[in-house]
């Protein structure tokens, strides 16, 4: 409402008068505001810290789990997780949000568990703890391992509304709200899990076996003797090389005792070459049956005590080279032989046989021969050196 007031000057002044309208509305507004604040705004104000508190509870759980996951022992994991939680508990945020740790490790509001989950099948999870290491040895092939940090805090209402009717007993509004969160992190060093005081050792592991158990294996590349073997002289090459000789050719062949002819080898010999032979240590052949005992006349490559052929023991290994006319046979006794005889060509192949009577007289091409009752074969290593 406006009212014009006459003044001494010609100018008119407009005066504002208080409106009488709405007086009742204003009178209603105050109690309405009071109710609104008490029943809506203040409870909402109390709910906001709960939301923040939830976030911080998870944050501290996650931080503690992350810190624990990288430690080299369960004890260290527990210690580091505790440090992380303690740091938060003493922080301004914790005070502002009135977060009080509930129970847990050293009443700091957290517990550390070790979760073991089967990677196959149903993926069953077994939880070890709280705050004690698992006693079993971790099996990384079958399981995955995680640290679980379980944090529990009590959040007091921002504004104490505990005396209000109806809402005074609601947790978070009138009463403290109990908040729990879990966070998981994969254990980075699963070996650290077994035993609370067993920090991972980074040294001192032992193999369950050794490879140097074979005598004479100490010098790489060399036969240093000592160990039993299949051959009479396994260091045959080394002997030649140590004597300053060069290996020209070699082979390992099988010479059949029943062979009534010269058996070819694949090695070539020249005048002045050294022929070295070695035999399988347990190698034996027989040059017939002993008429007295009825048993095979077993010998090694050096031959037996029987009658000699060509001046060499019967049953021994003899060799010759291709030549024209044929060269005389040589006694290939275990050891080495320097070939001093001339050869047919610049190089000629070595041939070998059991010494029992080669030639047309005792071993004709067709018909029976003295080799027919022989048995066995000899495994021969031939090394040609110079």
């Amino acid at each position: 409402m406006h009212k014009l007031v006459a003044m001494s000057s010609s100018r008119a002044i407009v005066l504002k008068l208080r409106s009488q309208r709405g007086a009742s509305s204003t009178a209603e507004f105050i109690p309405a505001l009071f109710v609104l604040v008490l029943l809506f705004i203040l409870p909402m104000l109390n709910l906001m810290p709960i939301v923040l508190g939830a976030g911080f509870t998870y944050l501290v759980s996650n931080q503690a789990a992350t810190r624990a996951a990288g430690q080299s022992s369960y004890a260290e994991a527990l210690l580091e997780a505790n440090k992380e939680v303690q740091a938060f508990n003493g922080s301004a945020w914790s005070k502002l949000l009135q977060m009080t740790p509930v129970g847990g490790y050293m009443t700091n509001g957290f517990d550390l568990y070790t979760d073991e989950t089967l990677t196959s099948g149903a993926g069953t999870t077994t939880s070890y703890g709280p705050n004690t290491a698992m006693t079993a040895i971790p099996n990384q092939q079958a399981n995955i391992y995680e640290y679980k940090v379980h944090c529990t805090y009590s959040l007091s209402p921002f504004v104490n509304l505990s005396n209000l009717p109806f809402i005074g007993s609601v947790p978070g509004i009138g009463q403290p709200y109990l908040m729990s969160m879990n966070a998981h992190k994969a254990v980075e060093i699963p070996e650290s899990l077994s035993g609370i005081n067993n920090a991972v050792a980074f040294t001192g592991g032992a193999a369950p076996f050794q490879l140097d158990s074979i005598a004479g294996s100490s010098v790489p590349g060399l036969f240093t003797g000592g160990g039993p073997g299949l051959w009479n002289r396994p260091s045959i090459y080394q002997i030649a090389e140590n004597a300053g000789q060069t290996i020209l050719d070699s082979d390992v062949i099988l010479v059949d005792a029943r062979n009534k002819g010269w058996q070819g080898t694949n090695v070539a010999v020249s005048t002045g070459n050294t022929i070295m032979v070695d035999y399988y240590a347990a190698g034996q052949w027989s040059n017939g049956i002993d008429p007295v005992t009825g048993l095979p006349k077993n010998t090694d490559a050096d031959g037996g005590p029987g009658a000699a052929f060509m001046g060499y023991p019967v049953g021994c290994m003899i060799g010759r080279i291709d030549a024209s006319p044929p060269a005389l046979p040589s006694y290939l006794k275990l050891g080495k032989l320097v070939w001093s005889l001339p050869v047919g060509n610049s190089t000629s192949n070595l041939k070998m046989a059991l010494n029992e009577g080669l030639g047309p007289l005792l071993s004709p091409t067709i018909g029976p021969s003295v080799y027919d009752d022989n048995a066995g074969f000899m495994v021969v290593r031939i090394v040609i050196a110079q």
Partner: protein
Amino acid sequence: MRINTLNTGRRIQSGNLTVLTVVFLIAIILPILFFGLSYLKIMASYQGQKSAIDVASLSVAQDLGNIVIEGPGVGFISLSDFAPNGSATLATDGYPLTVRSINSLLATTRLEMILSDKLTDPILVNCANVDYARVMAAKTALVTALQAAVAPGGTALDKDGNIIKPYDRALNAYNSVNIKKMVDGTTNIKANSLTIELGYVEDLVTNMPIPRPAVFAELSSADQESGFYKSGRNIPYNGKPFVFAAGGNSAALVDFRRYKTTIPGLPYQIPTVVCCRAEQIYNETDAITGSRVRSVTATSCARPACLVDTKPKAGLFGVSGGVPLNMNPYPGNFYQLLTHVDLYNCPADAVYTPLTDDYPISATALVAVPELSNRKHPPFGHLLRLAFFDWLRKAGPCINLSSMFTAMQAPADFTVVASTTAMKIDKNGVFSIEAFPFDPLKSIPASHKQLYAVTGGAFPTANGAFDVYLKDQVRNLGRVNGGKHGGEPLTNIQANSAIPGVSNRFDENPSGLGTAPNGPGGTTIRPSYTATDAIAVELKFRERSLPPIVYPP
């Protein structure tokens, strides 16, 4: 009174204080505002410059991780592991070769030394020492290449043969950031002021795992973090120094205030942390000071990306053809085979290497083995251990030693003639025993420039004797030393059409050997990288029957 004043319309005489206050405030506030504005501009331009130098250092760090060189005796090396799919790493078989990171080589060699000691085997120890010398030479070559690449005008190649110009790219990256946004005037990088150095930030954690289980790591707790080696510190083993290069799964900025060009006391340097510095010239004008020139130097450091190959394929360590039943004692597992006295003490009748292609396509030559006192006829058992060592080396640093010990003592059936009983290693470094069908017509050839050994007549039977062959396809690594396949396992063997004949000599009948197919070139990944049956080492037993009776003469 007020009404009167209003009515008269005259200027009020009071209020000088107001003017004074306004002037005073202007005198104080304006300089502060100008200073603030100027400071804001300086800070904003510095932030722009910092952003530019960060981008530059990250760009160099990314480039460093992609540089690939061919290391002496170790194949292709880099700061990162790469799968065999680089078109510039093609071996002559038409398939690419793997690229190993220097950290991987160092960690592998360190593991080799630890393993050799734990097994107290002088042959493995010797092999590890030879490998150490090779890796040190490779490290020197890589550091030289990295230093040369980051110099102005420096270049290098990636695995696909693309030219990498870290300096130029860094300069472009720097210049591409708009530093001018907050500058009144012009601003440019001072000519030649961009410097790129390689150095260290102490105690950065690498992504290279320590030996597993950790009890075999043989280091102090401070040398590792969360099971990974730390960089820039000496982590020796048996008197041999090991220094790992800084690097992570991706290029990342690091605190430039902690940057050092060298770390005193290190036995050797592998500087990989990039430090970029650049001086920016600002030609500015403003209302108060007029034109002025100022320069600001900004620094940024980044660690390179050092990718770790999570599935290095070592191939199989296989035993084929059936072990002679009269071996005494009969080997029931790989450990017993490796330590079998009779097999061990057989002399190697020949240690070959195929000369120009795989055997039997190519002829072979007798070779001496440097790790075995340069002998041409060492004990066969020494060669077998050498091959075992080579296979483990191929598997890299992630093998689980406990798993290996377990697998070596696990029962293995070597009796089946038509089967290859093999040890294999999965991507987690876990060992297992598996049997694969063995086709005598698909017996693997001997790889070009690799090791092929034989001992003849080792185990006589009633009707003949067993010859034993060892094919180590992963002995010599890389395109130069490793030949056609570069020291990679073989797979997809094509059968030979001929039926193997019989001869009375120790040589393997060439018609019984298959052939390894050639690749198409380009970036097609090497089949052995994905195959589960590729063979790295084959120990093959072949029974040779008695030759037919011959008649005179």
